[in-house]
């Protein structure tokens, strides 16, 4: 049994510091948002083998606190760019579940008209601005979005999610440099889940602190416990405030763990690239159970409230799937639309 990448955060104790800054309703809202993502992901996973969703999936089960904590610090006009691992970001940013599931079922009313698939979930009305299926692809684009905001004197900020392996792409370094040079209103949110597909960080980078990488561009760089939704919220708020007030970019590294395979349904730890024990160790700090435990202990949540939540979510999710499955598929003429903008 080898735990190559242990959890090093504070666990449940980590919530105390932050909780008093938020109303009970706010805290419950955060929990509900995480739970909603979890349940949606589980349902996608459950149905995946039915082959109705002919699209790659990259589940975020285990990584809900980063999306939810980060997006809670953003307004609707703030923009979020994402990588292939889109589901959590899309939902946390307020993306339309129905449009997402329609997209994943390759329907014409999908959020990208069935042209983008699960790696290209967008919902511009809520600032889910764009994604790339190319590792690192969204990073300079997000910097460009931040440059546009700066040039236009708009006060929204831009957040870009990147994985640990994305830091190895040259373009990520180029983007840090440019963002620092222009003091762009941009937050680099790095979800370090220690793996790129099935490759551990240690086979891809020397032993180092990722923060030093960003700091070498004179960018404030912090680490935050990625399973603690409140800590994530707090750090993102600081970064967003800095960006919004003209203080330039911030780099946030959040160690997290994905409980499932890189892509597809189920976990693949048993294939040997990581130890099942490692996943199990992280499952003991599941961001949901950790936070619900905290809420329960504080009397903000109980079994009954949870059941009500679950029920509503189950209904919403069932509805959305039903709609997706009943939605029309595109016709041939749709293929030729939108190759060029008018």
């Amino acid at each position, binding site marked *: 049994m080898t735990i190559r990448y242990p959890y090093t955060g504070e666990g449940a104790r980590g919530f105390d510091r932050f909780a008093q800054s938020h109303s009970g309703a706010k805290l419950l809202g955060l929990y509900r948002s995480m739970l909603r993502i979890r349940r949606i992901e589980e349902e996608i996973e459950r149905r995946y083998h039915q082959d109705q969703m002919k699209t790659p999936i990259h589940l975020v089960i285990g990584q809900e606190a980063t999306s939810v904590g980060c997006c809670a610090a953003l307004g609707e006009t703030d923009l979020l760019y994402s990588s292939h691992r889109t589901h959590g970001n899309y939902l946390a940013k307020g993306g339309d579940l129905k449009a997402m599931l329609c997209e994943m079922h390759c329907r014409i009313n999908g959020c990208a008209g069935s042209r983008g698939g699960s790696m290209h979930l967008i919902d511009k009305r809520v600032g889910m601005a764009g994604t790339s299926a190319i590792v690192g692809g969204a990073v300079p*684009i997000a910097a460009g979005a931040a*440059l546009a905001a700066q040039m236009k004197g708009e006060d929204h900020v831009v957040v870009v999610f990147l994985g640990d392996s994305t830091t190895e792409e040259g373009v990520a370094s180029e983007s840090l440099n440019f963002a620092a040079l222009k003091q762009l209103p941009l937050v680099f949110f790095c979800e370090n889940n220690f793996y790129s597909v099935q490759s551990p960080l240690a086979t891809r980078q020397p032993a180092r602190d990722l923060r030093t990488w960003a700091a070498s561009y004179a960018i404030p760089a912090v680490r935050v416990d990625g399973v603690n939704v409140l800590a994530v919220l707090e750090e993102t708020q600081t970064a967003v405030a800095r960006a919004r007030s003209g203080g330039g970019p911030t780099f946030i590294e959040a160690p997290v763990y994905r409980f499932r395979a890189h892509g597809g349904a189920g976990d693949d730890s048993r294939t040997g690239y990581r130890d099942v024990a490692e996943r199990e160790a992280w499952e003991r700090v599941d961001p949901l159970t950790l936070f619900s435990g905290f809420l329960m202990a504080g009397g903000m949540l109980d079994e009954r409230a949870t059941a009500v939540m679950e029920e509503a979510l189950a209904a919403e999710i069932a509805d959305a799937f039903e709609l997706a499955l009943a939605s029309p598929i595109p016709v041939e003429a749709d293929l030729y*639309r939108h190759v060029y903008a008018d």
Partner: protein
Amino acid sequence: MPWDEALVNSLVYDKPDPGEGRVSTYVSAVREALTLALEHDPRVFVLGQGVDDPSAMFGTTRGLQQQFGSQRVFDIPLSEEGMMGVSAGAAMNGMRPVYMHNRPDFILLAFNQLVTHAAKFHFMDNGTTDVPMVVWAAIGRGWGSGAQHSQAIHGMLLGVPGLKIVMPSTPYDAKGLLLSAIIDNNPVCVFEHRWLMKKDGVVPEGLYRVPIGKGVYRRRGKDVTIVGASHAIELGAQAASLLASEGIEAEVIDLRTVKPLDEAIVLESLKKTGRLVVVDTAWMKGGLCAEIGCLAAEKGFADLKAPVCRVGLPDVPTPAGYTLEQFYYPDAARIAAAARGIVRV
């Protein structure tokens, strides 16, 4: 007057060029287009390595930073891929970047952002995102440019859906096409050629557009069609003069845009001449020469009376010395010889 309205009201010349009027250089024509765009549209900005330096991108950006400020005309880090992504991201968010490169070779560093991102986002986003950006570069040739500083890359990009590519050959087109490119709501590559930079020509003042996707006759003839763009069609026109003295009347078509291609004009000419020479500044294999040659075999077959000829670069990297370059780059004589060969078939 806002840009859009000004442009809607601006002239679109369908003629090759206005024939007479103010003469200016190619470089001034480009600078004028940039100036007008910056003046009329606050969304336009110009970025590129050294655009604000004393060399000023061959002079095309001279004075622009002084006039429009360093927010709108600025130098950038040596990060081709990153800055292509930044340009795309800015374009997706309401700006209209003009990203200038000294040489197309440097755009090869940014193919991922250009090909897989900028060109495809509009489609992937189901039409909800526009990416109105211009990627400008001048093809190098001579004085030791060599294998790494002389690549004409438009042939590689013909198969990229979502991109447009223009390659002007006259100062008039350089201004009008650049304005069209900036106004276009898609990523447009503008490939200039270093050997055209000093050329003079008639360039009307003020706003006008040369339409993207429309070729133009540079010379009328009935015996053979010479098709190409940029510096290659300059040589093509010279070749036509040589041929004229021998009694061969060549028709010369300047494509001006290589994607989307004006197939109609090529096919129309072919109907008359039945003979085709395709000229290009790039390699002959798999690029523009191949595309137009294939077009003739596909849609112009009934009119073809002789084999198609390509005149471009051999399947060899560019040598750095002028001593080898002389054998490498085709000239008017070589184009004329190709035409002669098929006219006599």
